[in-house]
């Protein structure tokens, strides 16, 4: 099976040969990992992204256009997964967590952050309710755009727009405070 071309292996998988997929995984895991590591800059997370990409590939393998090059398709799936991973990564500090910690245990910098957090919370209270919802879900609940979209029954692009406008409004309010 190792000598078969990618396209032949894909045809085998489509015909019900699950083992052929194992060869595709073996053949591409290293290349994909190098590619994803370059994008996400984290060795272990890159393996998770690669694994998710293979699962997505399997789920959509029946829709692969055999006239196109398989590796391009696989790399585009992986690139999309890497981008979603970067988007869903939670780089923000949860203000709730900071607010709930007793200030005696906090280093000075965190106390300052806590005060900042309270200021931000106050500012959030003053903005439009629809923006408030989005900003709370994004920053306090650490939800991704997709998850917020599902929660509020809104398209992802609308969430993105709401968040941008919310940040603008917050900036204005915070300058005033």
């Amino acid at each position, binding site marked *: 099976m190792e000598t078969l071309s990618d396209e032949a292996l894909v045809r085998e998988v*489509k*015909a*019900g*040969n*699950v*083992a052929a*997929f*194992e060869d595709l*995984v*073996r053949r591409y*895991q290293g290349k994909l*990992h190098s590619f994803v590591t370059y994008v996400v800059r984290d060795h272990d997370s890159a*393996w998770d992204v*690669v*694994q998710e990409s*293979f*699962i997505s590939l*399997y*789920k959509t393998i029946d829709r692969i256009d055999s006239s196109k090059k398989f590796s391009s398709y696989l790399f585009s799936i992986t690139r999309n997964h890497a981008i979603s991973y970067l988007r869903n990564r939670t780089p923000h500090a949860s203000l709730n967590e900071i607010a709930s910690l007793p200030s005696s245990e906090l280093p000075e910098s965190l106390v300052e952050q806590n005060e900042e957090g309270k200021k931000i919370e106050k500012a959030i209270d003053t903005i439009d309710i629809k923006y408030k919802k989005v900003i709370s879900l994004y920053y306090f609940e650490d939800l991704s755009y997709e998850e917020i979209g599902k929660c509020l029954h809104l398209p992802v692009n609308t969430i993105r727009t709401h968040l941008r406008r919310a940040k603008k409004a917050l900036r204005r309010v915070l300058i005033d405070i």
Partner: protein
Amino acid sequence: MKKRVDITKSVMERIVRFEERRSKRWLTIFWGIAILVTIFLGGSLLQAYIILSERRTWDLLEIFYQDREIITEFWQDTLLMFWAELPQNTLLWGSGFALFLVGYWIFTRHQRQIMKRRLAELAKRKNSSNNS
């Protein structure tokens, strides 16, 4: 030295779980539709039989147990009468269901073969992982 990672096993375990669920769902839907249409087909045929029995239409066919001369003289009239007595609406539905079943069986043949192969492979994988 850099640690060599191989995710093949974990990917394949997830694929097998996914494929088991997907194949089972497909087979459930396939057999569900097939059984339902067969029930409708059986129902139509049974209804037609009951109607023919109530009208005593079956008795017409007894002519074919008679002497050869009687059969020769009356078989055409008898069959025409039998045809006229048939509950055509019910039989039309029955034919529709029968046609659907045949078409369904033919059109899903390729997919059934794929499913059969997939399920055989999954069973083989399961057995080998249980043994090891």
